[in-house]
């Protein structure tokens, strides 16, 4: 089925560990995004990508790393997880500038 898939849906890890959240879309959309959603803050942009091998920082990039070697995949890595990174993470994609974004169902990440 066409769409955008995030994995895992739930993850529990410990501080200091590296964790990678996966995002895969089947539309061949150029733009992909990572957001985090926290109570009282709404969605905040972490990183985005306009095309394969092109990434840029969003509002809250510190502590995160992204890559985009293939158009359909946009993994997000927490290199050394901290408790403040406990959140729900959403990946989104869109076909072009000024168009609606399509969201995955999120990864709920807990860091103990």
């Amino acid at each position, binding site marked *: 089925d066409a769409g955008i898939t995030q994995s895992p849906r739930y993850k529990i890890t410990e501080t200091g560990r590296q964790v990678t959240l996966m995002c895969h879309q089947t539309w061949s959309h150029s733009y992909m995004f990572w957001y985090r959603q926290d109570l009282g803050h*709404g969605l905040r942009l972490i990183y985005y990508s306009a095309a394969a091998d092109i990434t840029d920082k969003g509002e809250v990039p510190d502590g995160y790393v992204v890559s985009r070697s293939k158009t359909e995949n946009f993994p997000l890595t927490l290199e050394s997880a901290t408790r403040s990174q406990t959140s729900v993470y959403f990946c989104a994609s869109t076909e072009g500038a*000024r168009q609606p974004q399509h969201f995955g169902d999120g990864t709920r990440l807990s860091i103990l």
Partner: protein
Amino acid sequence: SQQGEEDPQALSIQEGENATMNCSYKTSINNLQWYRQNSGRGLVHLILIRSNEREKHSGRLRVTLDTSKKSSSLLITASRAADTASYFCATDTLTGGGNKLTFGTGTQLKVEL
């Protein structure tokens, strides 16, 4: 920093009533979008209104945009229990670049039977 602020934060109505949510923003926009989020799910796009448009309809949804007041409203008519969700406005700003959206903190709508 939040570009969009929704009002009210929470809204509870009876099925069949209309629900109105408001969004205010700070900087000039290219377009403004509304999204719905059901509990435990991702956001779903509802409607996009461009800066040169004043009103837009989609089924039971009506969105207005007043760029002079930097505000928008989302009206859901004849609400149903299935409309229970959080609703977010998101702005595509002129200076944002790269198709970035800035989301507000959302309105939680509860529609009771």
